């Protein structure tokens, strides 16, 4: 067992399958395994459009842990850091479909786009209507003019939450697509990393980072961001991160209501998230933003990588109403 990272696993090559089995157990009978590696809720509203999410494993609890009541109807699960293959996507699609078509919602990574696209082609051959909304909330991964190149990061949590609430209430796939796309358009994130995680199969770090620097805007797999900057305090970091969001094209004006999500990428402790939240407060206040709901948690992760991200979703009346619905999943639950 190559396990230099001291992980509590069995076989480094079967981690995805084993964590998947564990995940199904964590759902206490509310969701079931479908096909090779998909998880699908048991009690789905009949005659409704379906929400299928998915992505690579190793980032738990996303995506597959966001299946649940008023959350995803199902998820297609890939191997560690690898998008789910088309046949898994197809199996999940068939299981969530209730005759009203399926929305694919996932992060903007080449592998996910290609595999979900092939899955969509296979599903359409079987007469299932498929639509796709791609999550691209990471403002640090491409300029405003090239939004289609941006990665999907922690903003996916409020986005899936809204899409799940929509899927639980609307009647048509068109409506579900419209609302979900709006949620994406209303969400921006920026992350920083302080330490790499490690790849289960090799024990190797996911990237290299010097002891005295942090990666501003770095992606959750160590993808390059804006710059390597000297390690700094929470008070120094908060404006650097928020300014990247404020500098983008999503208008944030005094009085706007937002959902604020401070996320740990894995081993950054909640103490630090809370201190960063405190550091962010005066900056958000100075803008006159009204925080409708705050999430401080570790939901979008990359193994034991250290780092944080801040996501902001701007609410309008429709999004706020959907936000206020309760939801339940292994990864995020709201009363």
């Amino acid at each position, binding site marked *: 067992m190559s396990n230099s990272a001291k992980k509590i696993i069995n076989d480094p090559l079967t981690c995805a399958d084993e964590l998947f089995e564990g995940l199904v157990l964590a759902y206490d009978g509310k969701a079931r395994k479908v096909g090779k590696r998909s998880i699908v809720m048991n009690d789905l509203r009949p005659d409704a459009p379906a929400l299928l999410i998915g992505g690579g494993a190793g980032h738990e609890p996303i995506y597959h842990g966001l299946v649940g009541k008023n959350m995803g109807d199902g998820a297609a699960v*890939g191997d560690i850091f690898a*998008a*789910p293959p088309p046949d898994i996507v197809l199996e999940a699609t068939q299981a969530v479909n209730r005759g009203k078509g399926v929305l694919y919602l996932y992060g903007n990574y080449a*592998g996910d786009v*290609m*595999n979900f696209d092939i899955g969509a082609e296979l599903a359409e051959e079987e007469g299932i209507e498929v639509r796709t909304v791609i999550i691209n909330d990471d403002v640090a991964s491409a300029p405003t003019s090239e939004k289609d190149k941006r990665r999907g990061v922690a903003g996916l949590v409020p986005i899936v939450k809204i899409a799940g609430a929509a899927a639980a209430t609307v009647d048509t796939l068109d409506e579900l697509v419209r609302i979900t796309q709006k949620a994406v358009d209303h969400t921006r994130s920026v992350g920083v990393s302080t330490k790499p995680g490690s790849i289960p199969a090799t024990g190797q770090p996911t990237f290299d980072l010097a002891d005295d620097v942090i990666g501003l805007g770095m*992606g959750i797999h160590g993808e390059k961001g804006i710059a390597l900057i000297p390690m700094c305090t929470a008070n120094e970091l908060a404006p650097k991160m928020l300014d990247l969001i404020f500098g983008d094209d999503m208008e944030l004006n005094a009085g706007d209501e937002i959902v604020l999500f401070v996320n740990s990428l894995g081993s950054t402790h909640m103490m630090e998230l809370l201190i960063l939240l405190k550091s962010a407060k005066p900056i958000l206040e100075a803008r006159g933003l009204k925080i409708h709901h705050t999430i401080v948690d570790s939901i979008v992760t990359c193994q034991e990588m250290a780092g944080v991200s801040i996501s902001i979703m701007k609410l309008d009346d429709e999004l706020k109403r959907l936000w206020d619905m309760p939801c339940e999943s292994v990864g995020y639950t709201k009363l």
Partner: protein
Amino acid sequence: MLLLVCDRVIAAEPELSEADRNLGDGDHGLGMQRGMTAAKEKLTSAPQESVDKAFSAVGMAMMSSMGGASGAIFGTFFRNGGKALQGRGELDAQGLALFLQAGVDGVKSRGGAAVGDKTTVDAMEPAAVAAAEHSGGSLADAITAASKGAEGGKEATKAMVAKFGRAKTLGEGAIGFPDAGAISVTVIIDAMRDFVLDS
């Protein structure tokens, strides 16, 4: 031939993962290993009736076992390439050229990358071009030329800025490192060449 391809790619896991660690998330070798292990299983459990089926079977196995960018890319490469061999017998120089061209065409339309974008396409395309130039001659000559083409293409990726995949956000930072997927292409084509030259 395809079994040697599988074994070579499986053995190259550390090199491929390391290359992906420089530019991507470090799992390319693992994905390829998973795909080629599945392909080998498929090939050995039920020998395929024809060349095209064998190549397509490798593509199917890769596509459904790997996931990730390279699962779609190499799955498409072998499936589309395999389809182009339908109705043909043993692989010859012309078949090789057809296979490589159809394969790279499929990859290009699936992923949208062109030569110069620092992807598998940079190794596939020159290999296909070289094979086409030698498609009138012997398979040995054609595959040797294709191998050289792929190698040159892979080397060329070192100087490129990535436009696709995880490496695209590296910008200039990607310069100096060869693309992991392009290395895989050379491993595959080199294995085919060695098989042909040895038999």
